């Protein structure tokens, strides 16, 4: 399960506990089509829409409109929260929602350049989509700067709310560490942008210098061959372990075996992996790219330039400090990370954004079109107009009063809050809650406690 999916699932759970009704819309995953209930009644709609490339649906703007409209009315949604600049479904739903008079929030999880052709196209599409979005959320200040430039959104309409880590799931266990060797853990997808080329060179250069060093690499991807090649050529079969693809539930057990966590990303908006590693008490050595310098305090991370000499220096400094005992103890490390990042705090801050957008006036079609006109892509106005006409036609064909309102899923008559208020756990009834819809690329099969609704 990816970082975006993790973000959505955890935040949904916290929002449910804070009295929101949350539904998630995503496309189908093979046989996985229809409605599923997950933990605490989180309702997930796997729309019968086929993906066409890289887990994205074809951005038709109008084909999914009747289905999305039906769900929004049936579930009494008031706020649409889109995730990821790459999610065509998120952008479609936000545009449709705006035409239906709903409020929209968008969270950007990625950083994008401005030079290559794909970036130029994506940035223009993002600018079109966010032209009439009520508010944006970014996961780092660098991400905010990037989004403001890419999508031409006013900086006051962009909030910075970081990701968090489930610190209960990522706890240190120093007893699992090897005493006679030093283990460097790497957990990432083995793709170019995660700096696998740098990682391979670092392994090739540092292993001969430190015979007691072992590498534990979790993750898979198209660049795996490079690490295998280095391992073969340098004769490091017994010192470099490639674990392959890992479930998110397995990550903690791998992290706790290590002393140092290495991250060689070439670009990163936030980097959940380094926070999880720090929560497990590892020393973190990471490239100083994107939003990474904003994430952890300087005594919990060794920041390096994205080149081999700098990474080697960072690792050697970490090794020297480890030998001399000049490191933050694992439990202290965990305690500090837990105080810095928790999902309840993220949910509270996200809720403040919802309150802000809920208070904004709904725009007329004319003012919406004027907003979209600012993007400079005039043909997009035709698509918006067509979507509006389709909605008007559907209002006549399938009036709102003819659509059954879905009953809220009641696990019990009330839900106990996950957070403490004034030192005591308080309850909140499940009725008359604010309605919220998430549009997102995916929720994985690994999520627990789901029931299928036939």
């Amino acid at each position, binding site marked *: 399960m990816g970082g975006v999916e993790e973000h959505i699932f955890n935040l949904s759970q916290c929002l449910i506990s804070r009295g929101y009704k949350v539904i998630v819309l995503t496309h189908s995953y093979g046989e996985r089509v229809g409605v599923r209930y997950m933990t605490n009644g989180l309702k997930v709609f796997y729309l019968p829409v086929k993906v066409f490339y890289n887990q994205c649906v074809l951005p038709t703007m109008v084909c999914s409109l009747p289905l999305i409209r039906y769900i929004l009315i049936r579930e009494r949604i008031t706020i649409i929260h889109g995730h990821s600049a790459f999610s065509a479904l998120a952008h479609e739903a936000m545009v449709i929602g705006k035409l239906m008079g709903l409020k929209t929030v968008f969270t950007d999880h990625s950083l*994008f350049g401005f030079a290559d052709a794909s970036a130029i196209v994506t940035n223009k599409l993002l600018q079109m989509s966010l032209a009439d979005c009520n508010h944006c959320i970014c996961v780092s200040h660098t991400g905010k700067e990037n989004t403001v430039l890419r999508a031409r959104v006013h900086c006051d309409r962009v909030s910075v709310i970081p990701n968090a880590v489930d610190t209960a799931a990522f706890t240190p266990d120093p007893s699992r560490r090897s005493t006679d060797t030093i283990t460097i853990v790497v957990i990432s997808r083995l793709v170019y942008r995660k700096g696998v080329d740098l990682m391979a060179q670092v392994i090739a250069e540092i292993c001969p210098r430190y015979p007691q060093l072992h590498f534990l690499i979790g993750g898979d991807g198209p660049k795996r061959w490079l690490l295998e090649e280095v391992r073969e050529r340098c004769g490091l079969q017994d010192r470099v372990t490639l674990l392959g693809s890992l479930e998110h539930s397995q990550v903690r057990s791998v992290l706790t075996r290590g002393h140092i966590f290495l991250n060689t990303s070439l670009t990163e908006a936030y980097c959940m992996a380094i926070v999880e590693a720090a929560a497990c008490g590892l020393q973190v050595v990471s490239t100083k790219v994107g939003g990474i310098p904003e994430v952890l305090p300087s005594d919990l991370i060794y920041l390096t330039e994205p*080149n081999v000499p700098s990474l080697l220096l960072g690792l050697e400094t970490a090794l020297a400090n480890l030998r001399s005992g000049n490191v933050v103890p694992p439990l202290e490390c965990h305690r500090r990370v837990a105080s810095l990042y928790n999902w309840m705090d993220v949910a509270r801050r996200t809720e403040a954004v919802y309150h802000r957008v809920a208070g904004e006036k709904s725009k007329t079609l004319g003012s919406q079109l004027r907003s979209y006109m600012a993007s400079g892509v005039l043909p997009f106005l035709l698509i918006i107009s067509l979507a509006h006409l389709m909605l008007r036609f559907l209002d006549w064909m399938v009036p709102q009063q003819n659509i059954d309102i879905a009953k809220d899923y009641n696990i019990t008559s009330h839900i106990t809050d996950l957070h403490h208020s004034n030192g005591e756990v308080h309850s909140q009834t499940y009725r008359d809650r604010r309605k919220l819809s998430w549009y997102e690329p995916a929720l994985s099969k690994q999520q627990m406690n789901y029931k299928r609704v036939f």
Partner: protein
Amino acid sequence: MIQRQRMWKKNLYENIDYPDNYTDKTFLDELKKNVHITEISPLTAVFGAGLVTQEMCVVVFFVIVYVYLYNGWIEPETVFVQSSLVAAVAHLTYRTLLTKNNYYEVMVKDLRTVLIFVVFGYVLSPILKTLTDTISTDTIYAMTTFMMIIHLIFFDYGVPAAIVSSSLSLNAAIFGSVCLASRLSSPFHAFVLLSNAVECFVLLPILLSKGRGSVTVLAAMITVAIYALWTVSLIMMFLFVCVTLFVTVLCPFWFLRWQNYKDNIYGPWDEAVVHDTQM
């Protein structure tokens, strides 16, 4: 006592006193614009465009040879002998200036290559002549025009751009010449035209690449091309002059003017570039 608000810091864990949508005065401080921009002088721009004009002249030379052969204004033997002599002199000059050691060894190797080409070219010329025989003449001309345009677009002008493809450029030119060869009267005519194509599109660019940016070479080539076209068609000559002026004068002017609007954005969000990939 009133507690002063802590100073905002660009991190995700210290700014609890500030709203999430707070924008500090340091916002976009790390933004850099036009970092890798190199100043281009008008002369450099004109010389750069001159390389395109130069290759256009080469295409014109080849087409002129075809027109002369097609209309019977020149004997194929004359073309073959004269072009061979020019190629031999040019090759000797090229080798004398560039080959420092193993001169004779290299010359023997080159001679062997030429012999192989001449023998195989002559033997296969009847096949090449009839290869596109059944296709109508207007289609052949349209295809040749299209191929020559592809040749000019993908030609290596010395700029490391993604669009550059020497193999595609050469293949397009040779394919265009094979198309034209089918319109000639005999296999020997076809052989001469294809020999000329090899000289124009394979050997001449190698020689011209050594004298890149030479005003004399460029001026001479444009003059010869204009004169050659004048002997064939005044309309074509006028069209060539217009295209030459457009490419050599107007395009560099636009390029220099549009350079002022260049707005490349760089910042901490950019993907880092891995330089040292050799292990």
